[in-house]
């Protein structure tokens, strides 16, 4: 690719190429296998926008995919309808995934950015016992 070094060198029309070269069947190619270009937002890390981060506790997850559907930045990594992990390069820490997580306790919780993950998982809230209903 030509060096972008002046007004007369770039492609006209305020365009950007999301991929390096041609692509085929990109919809059926996993993000990590796509030839994203440098100008694609996928190539940019926004991890430092975050002051809080979600941590995922697999044992509590029922794979309902709510977090995957609601995440505004496609930062929930899910494969074959199973929640796998969080894309911390693109997660901005909005907390929506935690908000929509329906389990008790939640499989996703927000922690300070500096929080150690192993420690967070070891301190995860326990499932509350059902309260006796008032009669």
């Amino acid at each position, binding site marked *: 690719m030509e060096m972008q070094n002046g*007004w*007369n060198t770039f492609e006209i*029309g305020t365009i*950007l190429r*999301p991929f390096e070269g041609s*692509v085929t069947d990109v919809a059926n190619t996993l993000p990590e296998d796509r030839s994203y270009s440098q100008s694609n937002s996928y190539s940019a890390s926004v991890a430092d926008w975050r002051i809080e981060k979600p941590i995922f506790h697999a044992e509590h997850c029922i794979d309902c995919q709510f977090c995957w559907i609601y995440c505004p930045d496609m930062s929930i990594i899910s494969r074959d309808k199973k929640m796998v992990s969080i894309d911390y390069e693109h997660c901005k820490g909005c907390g929506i995934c935690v908000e929509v997580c329906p389990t008790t306790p939640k499989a996703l919780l927000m922690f300070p950015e500096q929080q150690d993950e192993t420690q967070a998982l070891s301190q995860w809230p326990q499932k509350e016992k059902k309260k006796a209903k008032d009669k």
Partner: protein
Amino acid sequence: MAETMELRDIEVWDGNMAASHALRQAQVDVVAAYPITPSTPIVENYGSFMANGYIDGEYVMAESEHGAMSCCIGAAAAGGRVATATSSQGFALMVETLYSASGMRLPILLNVVNRAIGAPLNVNGDHSDMYMGRDSGWIQIDCYNPQDVYDMNLVAFRVAEDHDVRLPAMVHQDGFMTSHTVQRVKTLSDDIAYNFVGEFNPMNDMLDLDNPVTHGVQTEEDWHYEHKARQHHALMSNVLPKIQEAFDELESLTGRKYNIVEGYNMNDAEVAIVCMGTSVETAYEVTKELREQGIKAGVVGIRIFRPFPLEQISALLKECKAIGILDRSSPNGTVGALYNEITGALFNSDTNAVVNNYIYGLGGRDLTKTSIHSIYRQLHENAQAGHLTTPLQQFIGLRGPKLSFF
């Protein structure tokens, strides 16, 4: 496949019908429109051609002119030949999107049927809308009659879509005076017209799924300036040669000769009027009468308003002794825009011309031959005196006491 329409060699069309047939013959892929007087019949006729099987394409009825041009931008980015039409307030509502179209280098054709901009609300012709578009980065071609409208539409597609240009183009005609006045129009057959325009050749189209592209991206202080410079460079360097090429081919095809700047009786002219639209032909009539009286009068008609042919205009005018520049738009606080541009063009030449400015025809007020005669009389006096004998800016055809400035 669209049906061919058999046209007579000479049809009796108004400017709107001429534009509609040019769009039909170019086989536009998408027309998105929000009709407004006096441009309404362009898209109305087009819709009827489509309903009767003469067009393969999409007609999108938008929710506003802003929406209409936005649809055109989307369709052009997707990789189609695109056109629409508007006037006046509708043009004003489109302005934001006009800058997107040119910045995104999308060759959309916009027929602008020139009309006054309110208040007071007015449906008749003046050049306020055309002037509003002059910094928007579009090519602006001006027509004086329905024949021009037909020919310039075909030229505009060809030039705008050229890969060395890739800029949108407006074709201007005067509201009602051209758009609703039927005149003889010499036609091309559907085949010949289509071949003159050429097959649409997309560039970086979004529907090329193997080579995906993001259109309309954001750049800040890092690259915005370079994009604007590149766009200005294309408008300044590539457009006029391509227009000249198209004019030459149109001439060899039809015998009709157009010029970047139109000069009538200008070879030895001592006094000249510069104007646009239907006024050009009226002024031309007057010069013929004046020449019988021994006054060397000429007319310069602006054919290409953007990119502004500064050097060609200067060359045509600099030998004149007195020049009157006619602006058909309220200058609202300064001299007329055309006056500004033409005096600017002449300033660094060796001209000794005395130049003044006439405001006329706002909201469809007639420009009569009598008014043009009186302008030439003033120019003749200025020429003999060698300096301005009247105020610099005068309103002509205005009721009440004389209004002038500077």
